């Protein structure tokens, strides 16, 4: 297991370097710093839940890789709606938490919620794309999606979480 963990660590250090590149901004606006673990975590969870469901459908034989497949479309839709549900709550939570911890947020309420929601929707779409691709590749190569797809998707979504948060922060803050 150790070689796999080392490779995943190198991937995660990539996202760490992205985080390091906007460290000054994160330290200036603690609301953004508060958003980091929860955004990474939720992105990884959206991906891993979707991957687990697709793996199960795949093993049950109810999944076909056609754009018209109800199973694929329904799961993709649920992922995006889940993001639209939880990310505004994440934004509100991060803003309130910053207020409590630091005594005064440097960013307005609307900005923090907007950053969280925009990051969330973008991440949900990316998570769907990454999970579909990984599941399809595993299927083509005859690998068990349970073994391969979930760790790959979780760690890729972790990295994307940081990259998307960085991009959205540059646009909106």
């Amino acid at each position, binding site marked *: 297991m150790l070689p796999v963990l080392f490779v*995943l660590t190198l991937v995660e250090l990539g996202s760490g370097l992205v985080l390091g590149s906007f460290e000054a901004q994160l330290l200036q606006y603690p609301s953004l710093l508060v958003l980091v*673990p929860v955004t*990474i*975590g939720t992105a990884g969870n959206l991906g891993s839940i*979707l991957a687990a469901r697709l793996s199960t459908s795949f093993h049950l034989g109810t999944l076909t890789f056609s754009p018209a497949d109800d199973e694929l479309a329904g799961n993709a839709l649920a992922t995006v709606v*889940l993001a639209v549900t939880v990310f505004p709550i994440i934004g509100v939570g991060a803003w309130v938490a910053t207020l409590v911890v630091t005594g005064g947020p440097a960013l307005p309420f609307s900005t923090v919620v907007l950053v969280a929601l925009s990051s969330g929707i973008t991440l949900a779409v990316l998570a769907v794309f990454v999970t579909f691709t990984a599941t399809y590749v595993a299927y083509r190569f005859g690998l068990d999606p349970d073994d391969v797809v979930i760790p790959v998707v979780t760690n890729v979504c972790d990295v994307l979480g940081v990259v998307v948060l960085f991009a959205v922060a540059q646009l909106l803050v």
Partner: protein
Amino acid sequence: MTVRDVAVEAYKEALPALAASLVGGLIAGVVLGGMRAELRAVPGLLVLVPALLATRGNVYGSLGARIATALHQGLIDPYVTGADERLRAAATAALANGVLTSTFASIMAFFLLTFLGSPVAPLPILVGIAIVAGLLSGIVLTVVVVTVVFAGYRRGRNPDTIVGPLVTTTGDVFGILFLLIAVRTVLAIAGVF
């Protein structure tokens, strides 16, 4: 099933787990937001954060999955007392994997940042933080995973569905909390010399 049926079922199934990890993630964020002084004092620490958090999830998620499978197969009993040889071996292996991977992350982060010409704390400081944080969070996460999965199993819950949300939630919280404790400990020790 129509697209709508699939979506509604997937949504209902995922929401509780997401909500639990959301709370954990926000608590971790609050601790991270409160350690800005430490992040300034140890350049390169922020670069390590995603790798350390992911290691907690990967290592202890895998430990939880192994315990769940062993319970299903009847290889271990869901009681901690008189701890089973298999359980002890799996927990020790997880702890070793966690500490080694954290150490590897800190060494690689040091060399990457040095190579890129970015400011970075001395290697012994980063390695010390990674080892202390990896060890402390590993011990607590092992205890939490074993205790909660056993308790859930004894109450008739499927351990497979407990492990994921449990590890993502507690992994983030304890990962960051022990990172803060490790930074303070290592800086205090370094200040003595």
